């Protein structure tokens, strides 16, 4: 296959998907006597085959395709290996193969082997293997020109940043698509299409709802983690004047491990799904179908991406800043990246551990959370939230950092209270470590813990408030311009404000006894996440797009995107909060018609499609502008930041001429002041 195009990729996707499906049906017939057209085996094969075939058509047998093919082979080989052992141990045929094809231990082992195979297949560990054998490697390796470098291992932080960002966008679409499906079901009371007789992937309608809802949550969260890494990876080395990250190979590794993780998350849907919510509380998760194991493994693997990425960021910022860039002269986004990375580096281990314990409980009958064996289900919640609360600040801190970074550029005024904003990021991160139990006010944990956790939770409002007040003060008496990135920044402040002020009511224990597990909470966190991450993420894409491509995204369609997304989103979340207060529970496939929520739900569903449409517009704009956008090679936003002082797209090795920091980063309106100075000003372009 010579012509590698999206077209041949899609063609192969369908062909191989059909072959996989047929193969699966055949196996199903062999194992269970009759083929199950909506079963898991056929779907699992179809998924595995189709994904790798798509990239085969798009890209040929190298890079990501090789990784995926190896992952498929590795998964099947690992599964067969365990199945073989089980056969030798004298298990019956029906205990080795079943309606999910492999048995649970075989799938788990297969998935692990698959991940490792992917990493070897894609070649991201090649250099390390050479080191093991005592062979030195070159630090600089040249990438292929054009788009093709994005599909195989590259050590360039700019390429990796874009890989992360695009993967995040793909996952947002997948998660968003899931949301659209289940929102459609919710548009009216009663079960419309996800009925009890509906069958897909061995699940009936309500089970599919639960799987989609849980996966929506986790895929979105993973996509945010990747998006965060994307922006940080692309921007931080540029902002501090480094030629790359401190550990380029580990950087590539951290990105590539997220790809098999995403495949595993999708596998969880077809392997029977799981109906536990993204939180995966046992004992329910200890009883769910095999899918939950894929979910655990997927999150566990994605967690490593987060941990290693964070490690890299901290090391880079400590070691590789430009001359003269002391702590109080770093661009403010770098502070946010540091604060985020501290959380991601440490706390992430705990979600890994908590999921691992449930995994072992399922595999080996270890009774950590099984009351019958003396286990404690509430312990899981403590371990889980010890990560997952701080995790929400992993999402928002970079987002808030972007707001602080862009606001001065478009207000044409120094960032108000730089030090305070920098310190408030650290403050949020640190206080964020001691508030986790506010998710557990109704969980039956020790009663006397509730009040201290209410106090600590309320304290987070203070550093967050410092940021808000400083932003307002930055805008005050500026000369405010509102191109698309600035619109998204302003939208972010507005939406995050709504999310933020709906936090303290949750922290009031008694009130939370009413609010907990209702759509009020769902509204709260969609607001915080959109305001704290999604809006800033779009802002940063519009803002740094010219840096990465040398072209601008279309302003008009950018504004359409904003003005369609914002009102749709606001109505969606106001609706959530409103019905939540009135008694709409979370995570239900159907609600009591007597509650009278039908009209609100219908409006919310329509708004969800509005958001989706706006995102679609964004995608078209994004891809269209790569070739056709208005050329923009200079300092598009008239920014003081170092990356805008060199031509776009960014040169391959960043700053050919190193710079030195000679002033404050945000001294807009101070004539003659400069932030950076290139060390040998003789070289002109």
């Amino acid at each position: 296959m010579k012509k590698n195009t999206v077209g041949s990729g899609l063609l192969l996707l369908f062909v191989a998907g059909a072959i996989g499906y047929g193969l699966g049906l055949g196996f199903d017939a062999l194992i269970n006597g009759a083929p199950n057209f909506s079963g898991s085996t056929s779907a699992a094969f179809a998924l595995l085959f189709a994904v790798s075939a798509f990239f085969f058509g798009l890209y040929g047998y190298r890079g990501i395709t090789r990784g995926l093919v190896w992952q498929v082979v590795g998964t099947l080989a690992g599964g067969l290996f365990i199945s073989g052992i089980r056969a030798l141990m004298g298990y019956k045929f029906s205990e080795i193969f079943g309606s999910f094809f492999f048995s649970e231990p075989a799938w788990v082992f297969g998935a692990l082997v698959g991940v490792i195979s992917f990493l070897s297949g894609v070649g991201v560990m090649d250099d390390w293997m050479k080191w093991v054998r005592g062979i030195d490697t070159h630090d600089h390796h040249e990438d292929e020109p054009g788009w093709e470098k994005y599909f195989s291992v590259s050590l360039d932080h700019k390429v990796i940043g874009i890989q992360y960002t695009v993967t995040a966008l793909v996952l947002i679409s997948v998660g968003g698509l899931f949301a659209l499906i289940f929102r459609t079901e919710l548009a009216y009371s009663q079960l419309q299409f996800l009925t009890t007789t509906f069958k897909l992937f061995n699940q009936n309608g309500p089970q599919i709802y639960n799987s989609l809802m849980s996966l929506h949550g986790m895929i979105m969260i993973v996509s945010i983690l990747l998006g965060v890494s994307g922006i940080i990876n692309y921007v931080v080395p540029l902002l501090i004047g480094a030629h790359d990250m401190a550990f380029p190979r580990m950087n590539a590794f951290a990105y590539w491990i997220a790809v098999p993780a995403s495949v595993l998350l999708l596998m969880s849907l077809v392997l029977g799904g799981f109906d536990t919510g993204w939180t995966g509380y046992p004992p329910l998760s200890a009883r769910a179908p095999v899918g939950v194991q894929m979910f655990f493994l997927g999150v566990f693997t994605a967690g490593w991406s987060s941990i290693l990425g964070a490690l890299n960021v901290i090391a880079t910022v400590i070691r590789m800043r430009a001359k003269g860039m002391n702590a109080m002269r770093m661009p403010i986004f770098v502070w946010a990246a540091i604060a985020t990375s501290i959380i991601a580096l440490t706390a992430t281990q705990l979600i890994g551990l908590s999921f691992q314990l449930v995994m072992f409980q399922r595999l080996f009958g270890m009774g950590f959370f099984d009351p019958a064996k003396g286990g404690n289900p509430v312990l899981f919640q403590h371990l889980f939230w010890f990560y997952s609360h701080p995790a929400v600040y992993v999402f928002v801190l970079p987002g808030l950092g972007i707001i602080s970074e862009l606001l001065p550029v478009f207000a044409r005024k120094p960032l108000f209270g730089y030090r305070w904003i920098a310190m408030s990021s650290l403050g949020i991160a640190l206080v964020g470590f001691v508030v986790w139990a506010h998710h557990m006010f109704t969980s039956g944990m020790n009663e006397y813990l509730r009040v201290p956790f209410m106090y600590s939770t309320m304290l987070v409002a203070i550093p967050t408030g410092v940021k808000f007040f400083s932003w307002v003060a930055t805008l005050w008496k500026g000369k405010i311009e509102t191109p698309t990135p600035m619109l998204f920044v302003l939208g972010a402040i507005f939406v995050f404000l709504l999310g933020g002020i709906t936090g303290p009511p949750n922290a009031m224990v008694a009130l939370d006894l009413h609010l907990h597990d209702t759509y009020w909470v769902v509204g709260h966190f969609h607001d915080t996440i959109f305001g704290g991450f999604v809006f800033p993420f779009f802002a940063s894409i519009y803002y740094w797009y010219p840096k990465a491509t040398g072209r601008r995204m279309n302003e008009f369609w950018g504004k359409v995107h904003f003005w369609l997304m914002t009102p749709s989103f606001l109505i969606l979340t106001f609706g959530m909060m409103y019905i939540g207060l009135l008694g709409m529970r979370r995570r239900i496939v159907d609600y009591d018609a007597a509650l009278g929520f039908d009209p609100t739900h219908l409006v919310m569903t329509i708004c969800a499609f509005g958001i989706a449409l706006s995102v679609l517009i964004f995608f078209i704009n994004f891809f269209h502008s790569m070739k056709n956008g208005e050329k923009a090679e200079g300092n598009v936003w008239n920014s003081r930041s170092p990356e805008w002082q060199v031509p776009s797209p960014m040169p391959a090795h960043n700053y050919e001429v190193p710079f030195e920091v000679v002033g404050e980063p945000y001294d807009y309106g101070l004539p003659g002041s400069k932030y950076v100075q290139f060390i040998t000003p003789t070289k002109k372009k």
Partner: protein
Amino acid sequence: MRHFIIAGVLVIAASFGIYFGLASVDMLPVQASTQAVGIDWMWDIQLMAMSFLFALIFVPMLYSLIVFRRRKGDTSDGEHFEGNNALEIGWTVIPLFVVVFFAYLGAGNLADTLRADPDAMVVKVTGFQWGWKFAYPEYGFESKELYLPVDQQIWLKMESNDVLHSFWVPEFRPKQDLVPGRVTELRVTPNLVGSYKVRCAELCGTSHAFMESPVIVVEEDDFVKWAIEQQALAAAANTPESQGELLVSTNGCVACHSINGTTGQGPTWLGLFGSDVELTDGSIVVADEAFITESIADPAAKVVKGFAPVMPLYPFTNEEIANIVAYIKTLK
């Protein structure tokens, strides 16, 4: 200075506007317990705080956007102004006091909602996949509806032996999870006669959405009357068939099994006894007493074709199973 005054006035106006606007919308369900009074009071305070904070940030932001926007043709920068430590300290310390004060209020508020009445009536609640069961130890019977006398504190002692559930009657406000392996407690004092529903608020699997049971608050006299009736019913239900029927309805089997021939999560029971049942391994068995007994005692042992092995294991005694089988036999 002029700007500050205008913006300040606008902030105050907007706070009041937003607060009264929102307060005029019914945003909470009917208030049907004394615990709800305190919780709603806290909600009102939070609503004020939210309105004010929203206005405090949003109004100056909007004001700047309009007043300080860049005019056409203007290429100058804004005022060079890097910050003001006094201001920063102010907006760190004042919110500090505010949040500590809120938390203090919150603690008192919590104590109010937890206040125990020594004369409370105990009701034992069992949650299971997917239904509720309520036992009245003072009267010695079980019910699938929660009848409560008005104006008396109810002390709910709750248990689950499968997964987490959460007891929530929105009109009463507070909710509490049920945790397998331990007894969790909740106190509510209904103060409004009416019928409500307890809705499980913790995801518990496939039919979580449908895990609802009626909650009926009645006058004291009516409650006693009902309780005595139930006692009598429980005593009367002593044929195996009627005992079985009671067990089936109090344990929520009907959530999955219909008795009218429609297929639900599980196979229907109508005409089950004596029929031929095909299992997932392809074999066909006759649904005799032994098969039905085994299906209840060990649901995973033989799985009926076309169904997922989702049926929970119930801690029945042999006698109880026999009663259920007797009841299923009557469904022809």
